[in-house]
């Protein structure tokens, strides 16, 4: 994976010193809270309900075992012994004291980590799929361009006070596992017949109060123009994006107001001025960064492993875990493994304890090349596990509560921290997730249902990506009490769709029954191996509504 060079070290260390000074000035009241606010946000620091929350960047979701151990150290020394992995592949610590933040950042800088631009109205953490570099359906490795973008967007002086936050994601595989179409800029990487690396540029996606999927603004952009093209988009947005209303300030609103053609013309006109200038990437730079992502020393293995085959045949629980929690690897004899952070009632989605983090670091060293990934579904990926080791890994993961065989199933809930922590939330998320997980604890039934994504956000800001869940749950405030609006039919990936609201909101207590009703309707109507979202698309909302609102205890 990418290693810092002298420039990266200097920048991150200087940033720690700069923020230490800013914190001290705030504590001495030389900086007002208003002046301090954007500074702390751009260093990942929010003020939540109970304490400060620090969001640490995990660039495109990749981290080394030693970095995971550093996160465990932060959890233990500076927080309450755990952290929360987010839908932006980052980690949040929820119980942080302002005075200690510079020390945390200094510790993280020692392992090449930072919290720069994990919040604020600037370019946020660049994301790509958790299986980058290993997925069997990958067209090419998206990480070099992700890293190049990360560097370019870090403390880029012109674009630190944009109208609103700005999120960029890349995908370079057949299947889009990076939710590219809900980003301000989405980049699909591919090669043409001559082998040249090209970009399909999408723009104007975003969830929040006005969910919109992105539209294509450019096809076949040569990779060398990546930075100049993104610069052109950002400059047009910085100049013309709305600043009068934070709910209308994302680029999606500007794109919608102008129309994609007019917006594209603006970008094209700006880009013509800069496209052949010094921002044009060089092969040398690409290679320099790509060298950091060369494949680890894989062994030459047979695709079939006798011991693995035997274990699969003899242990049905293991076989079930393998069927849900592993992904085909591009190298024969290896698998990418997803360790679920969704055990159910014992821990909220995405929460991992310091002990688990240390265990994860150990597992990454024992069963791989000391590397881990964070998926935007908030799970942990071990990218390079020999199939011959899967059984031992499964047993070791089970010992620390990380072997729940539910990836992609109804209980693999995506949830934001919600009203238990977040100052913005209208309603709690975690108890809803746990109530659903508790209701659906029959693994046979869950596996029979197949892939159903269930995403929960505690407010309109949509950190839990509820719009693109097959089932989405949104916390809403009605006269000071917490209610939940339900959508169905949302999807991520290349066939992204926004879910549709099924009707009036429900109380927290009703939600498990509502989910039950939705799922039962699905099993009544599904044809053959059809997935939940396909059934919704085929039969529409009505049968689901009828079932859910028919029950007497649910108000019609």
């Amino acid at each position, binding site marked *: 994976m990418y290693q810092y060079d002298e*420039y990266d070290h200097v920048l991150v260390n200087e940033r720690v010193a700069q923020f230490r000074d800013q914190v001290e000035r705030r504590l001495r009241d030389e900086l007002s809270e208003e002046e301090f606010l954007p500074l702390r946000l751009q260093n990942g620091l929010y003020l939540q309900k109970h304490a400060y929350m620090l969001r640490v960047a995990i660039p495109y979701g990749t981290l080394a075992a030693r970095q995971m151990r550093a996160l465990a150290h932060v959890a233990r020394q500076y927080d309450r012994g755990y952290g929360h992995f987010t839908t932006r592949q980052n980690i949040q610590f929820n119980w942080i004291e302002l005075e200690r933040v510079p020390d945390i950042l200094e510790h993280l800088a020692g392992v090449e980590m930072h919290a720069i631009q994990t919040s604020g109205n600037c370019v946020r953490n660049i994301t790509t799929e958790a299986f980058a570099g290993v997925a069997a359906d990958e067209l090419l490795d998206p990480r070099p361009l992700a890293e190049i973008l990360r560097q370019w967007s870090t*403390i880029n002086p012109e674009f630190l*006070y944009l109208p609103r936050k700005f999120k960029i994601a890349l995908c370079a595989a057949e299947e889009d596992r990076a939710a590219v179409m809900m980003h301000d800029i989405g980049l699909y990487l591919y090669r043409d017949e001559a082998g040249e690396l090209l970009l399909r540029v999408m723009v104007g996606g975003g969830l929040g109060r006005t969910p919109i999927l992105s539209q294509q603004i450019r096809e076949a952009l040569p990779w060398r123009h990546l930075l100049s093209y993104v610069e052109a988009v950002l400059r047009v947005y910085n100049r013309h994006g709305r600043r009068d209303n934070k709910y209308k300030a994302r680029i999606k609103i500007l794109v919608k107001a102008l129309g994609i053609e007019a917006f594209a013309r603006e970008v094209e006109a700006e880009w013509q001025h800069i496209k052949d200038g*010094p921002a044009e990437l060089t092969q040398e730079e690409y290679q320099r960064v790509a060298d950091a992502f060369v494949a680890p020393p894989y062994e030459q293995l047979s695709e079939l492993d006798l011991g693995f085959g035997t274990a699969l045949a003899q242990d049905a629980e293991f076989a079930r875990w393998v069927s849900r929690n592993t992904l085909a690897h591009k190298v024969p004899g290896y698998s990418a493994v997803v360790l679920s952070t969704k055990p159910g009632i014992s821990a909220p989605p995405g929460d991992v304890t310091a002990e688990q983090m240390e265990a994860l670091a150990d597992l990454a060293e024992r069963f791989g090349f000391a590397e881990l990934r964070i998926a935007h579904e908030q799970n942990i990926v071990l990218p390079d596990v020999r199939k011959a080791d899967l059984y031992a890994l499964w047993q070791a993961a089970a010992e620390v509560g990380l072997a729940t065989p539910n990836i992609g199933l109804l209980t693999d809930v995506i949830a934001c921290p919600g009203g238990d922590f977040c100052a913005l939330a209208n309603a709690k998320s975690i108890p809803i997730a746990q109530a659903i997980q508790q209701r659906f604890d029959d693994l046979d039934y869950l596996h029979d249902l197949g892939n159903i994504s269930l995403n929960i956000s505690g407010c309109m800001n949509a950190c839990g990506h509820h719009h693109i869940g097959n089932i989405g749950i949104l916390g809403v405030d009605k006269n000071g009490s917490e209610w939940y609006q339900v959508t169905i039919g949302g999807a991520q990936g290349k066939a992204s769709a926004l879910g549709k609201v099924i009707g009036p909101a429900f109380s927290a207590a009703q939600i498990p029954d509502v989910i039950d009703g939705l799922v039962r309707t699905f099993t009544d109507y599904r044809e053959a191996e059809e997935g939940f979202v396909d059934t919704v698309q085929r039969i529409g909302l009505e049968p689901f509504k009828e079932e859910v609102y028919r029950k007497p205890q649910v108000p019609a």
Partner: protein
Amino acid sequence: MNNLIRLLDGTPSIVCNDPWQLLGDVTEPAVQGPQIMPLNVWLARQDEAVLRAEQASADGVCLAPDDEVESLRPYLPVLPMIAIAFPSFRDGRAYSQAYLLRTRLGWTGELRAVGDVLRDQLSHMRQCGFDAFAVREDKSVEDALKGLAGMSVVYGRSAIEPRPLFRRRV
């Protein structure tokens, strides 16, 4: 203006006797000495010869965030200085305006940040092409001076360093 920092050949100094005064709108009473005024006021006050770019203007212009920098193009030869307003330090439009004035329109004269100009944004302003900083009057200009240098590493490019880091690596 008070509380002014200026860069001369890249070296900052605090200017104590700056003659420029910022004119808010036309209704303000006339003041002595050179003035910086909003674009519409500036246009209204210039002689025909200035507007034809045949005669230097005595007045500086101050761009608001909504103003198009391109509209200044005909007047660049006759403008004594340009100010760009930060109505709030959180409004980042002035960064792009400054960048465009320097790199696209080739403005080489004074480019002054006015308004909510604070220590912790000065280095970004400098990198985007500002060379004068009218620090908000309730703030210490000596303190603000510490914010001008910023970080020693800039990955991307800027008005004062058009090459991204990957073209500067040794």
